[in-house]
């Protein structure tokens, strides 16, 4: 394992020190592991707070700023944050209009945010939780922990953040988040496994000519392994898998997020996106907006995920709304 770190134990703390140094527009509470905007809102506004394990950067800290998150709670690498973080974040950023927690659907995240919501309620805060579960690789049944939350998190954070910025009330912001999640589906393909600093070796072994189809962002193995194929074939498979699960009809518009998992060059992501766009066109789906790049990563995993969110005028308007965060900016 070759990593640009000091020690596996200090990864999160050292990275937060770097975030603090790089972003004077953010306040980084290193002991409490909370990232907030340096500037507080003028009047009461719903506070949008997200969090999850580290290793998915820029998610979530990179999305803190006007028009998106009020605070992010980064856990240890691939480990959900602890309730104390969410409580500290909520207390730091709430301004009387309540708090929305955005939670990716993993057992650990769900439980830790649940405990945090209890603690926050005890402190008199109004809390709503939006669960993100967009990964079609996992069957959503009583036999599993349910679908994982992946790329749609970016869209949920962007949309709720934009709406909250306009002064919408708590229930409306939370309902929007649920609506965006329900309108979103994702699917991922990995070319290599991620190596966590703690484990020191790849989370799974993948032969030199094989890929993991339907992989999770913590390296949870996917639906199956198969031989590597050209980008065109992989893109078609990803699009078709999502469409098989999505209520989209020819003529529908989507927001498309072609997301790199960390170690795939942007050059290749654009190749994949070109093929995705071509396939969507073949299937009669119009891409109204797109985003190509590394947004929900899995450390040094090579591969990509695609998220398709059914668009409508309100969502497009919120997607286009101004945002000023380290990783997403729009005038």
């Amino acid at each position, binding site marked *: 394992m070759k990593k640009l770190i000091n020690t596996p134990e200090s990864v999160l703390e050292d990275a937060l020190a770097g975030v603090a140094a790089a972003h004077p527009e953010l306040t980084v509470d290193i002991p409490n592991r909370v990232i907030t905007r340096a500037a507080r809102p003028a009047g009461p506004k719903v506070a949008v707070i997200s969090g999850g394990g580290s290793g998915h950067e820029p998610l979530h800290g990179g999305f803190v700023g006007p028009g998106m998150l009020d605070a992010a709670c980064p856990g240890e690498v691939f*480990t959900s944050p602890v*309730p104390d973080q969410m409580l500290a974040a909520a207390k730091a950023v709430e301004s009387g209009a309540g708090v929305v927690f955005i939670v990716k659907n993993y057992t650990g995240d769900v*439980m*830790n945010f649940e405990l945090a919501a209890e603690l926050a309620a005890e402190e008199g805060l109004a809390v709503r939780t939006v669960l993100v579960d967009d990964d079609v690789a996992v069957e959503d049944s009583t036999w599993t922990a349910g679908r994982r939350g992946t790329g749609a998190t970016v869209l949920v954070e962007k949309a709720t953040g934009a709406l909250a910025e306009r002064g919408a009330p708590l229930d409306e912001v939370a309902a929007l988040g649920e609506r965006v999640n329900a309108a979103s589906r994702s699917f991922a393909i990995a070319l290599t496994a991620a190596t966590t600093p703690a484990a020191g070796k790849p989370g799974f072994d993948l032969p030199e000519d094989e890929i993991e189809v339907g992989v*999770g962002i913590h390296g949870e193995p996917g639906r199956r392994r198969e031989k590597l194929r050209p980008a065109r074939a992989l893109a078609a498979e990803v699009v078709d898998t999502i469409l098989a699960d999505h209520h989209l009809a020819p003529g529908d518009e989507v927001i498309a997020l072609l997301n790199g998992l960390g170690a795939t060059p942007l050059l290749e992501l654009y190749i994949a996106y070109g093929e995705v766009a071509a396939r969507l066109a073949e299937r009669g789906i119009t891409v109204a907006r797109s985003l190509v790049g590394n947004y929900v990563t899995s450390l040094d995993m090579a591969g990509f995920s695609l998220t398709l969110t059914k668009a409508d005028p309100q969502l497009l308007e919120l997607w286009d709304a101004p945002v000023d965060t380290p990783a997403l900016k729009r005038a």
Partner: protein
Amino acid sequence: MDFDTPLAEAWVRAIAAAVEKEQGRLTELDSAIGDGDHGSNLRRGFSAALAALDGLRPAGPGAVLTKVGSTLISKVGGASGPLYGKAFRAIGAALPDPALADPTDPAGPAAVAEALAAGLDAVRTLGKAVPGDKTIVDAYTPAVAAFRAAAGAGATLPEAAAAAAEAADQGARDTVPLQARKGRASYLGERSIGHQDPGATSTALLFRALADVTAS
């Protein structure tokens, strides 16, 4: 032997030592069907718990374990943090605390059995797993049953703890053929079969540590 403050502390120390020693194995098991952090999660949690103990003296065994639970919740994260955290908080709350109760009537095997059972209830309430889901519950459930049975049959604390450790070990091993239905391993579907569950394995470590410290 009674479940007093020194014993509670010794148990926590023994768990911390076991987790330190077995960190690699827990991580390996978690890499196979999870995300490879179970070992470092518990290590971080129990070393924080050890540190937290230092500020506590003198306190009853219940207070010690409650503090351990709170520390795990505050430091671990992931699935295992809230689950073990709630468990230790429940065990601590259920243990007769000498600081509150009659100091000459410390917790005997039966009271310990009920405290451990309260921990299991907390895990099941929070995590909603049932036996057979390939989780902590699969080691914890037989361990409590064995402890209770032994205590009911008049066993000493060391004897009951040894029986529980044995049952937890067996329960952990019995997770191998199971298909996970809770937690991250459930994403694997049938591919989770054939691997021992990391959480059940760490639960067995916890009970083995209790057996060790009561035996010595």
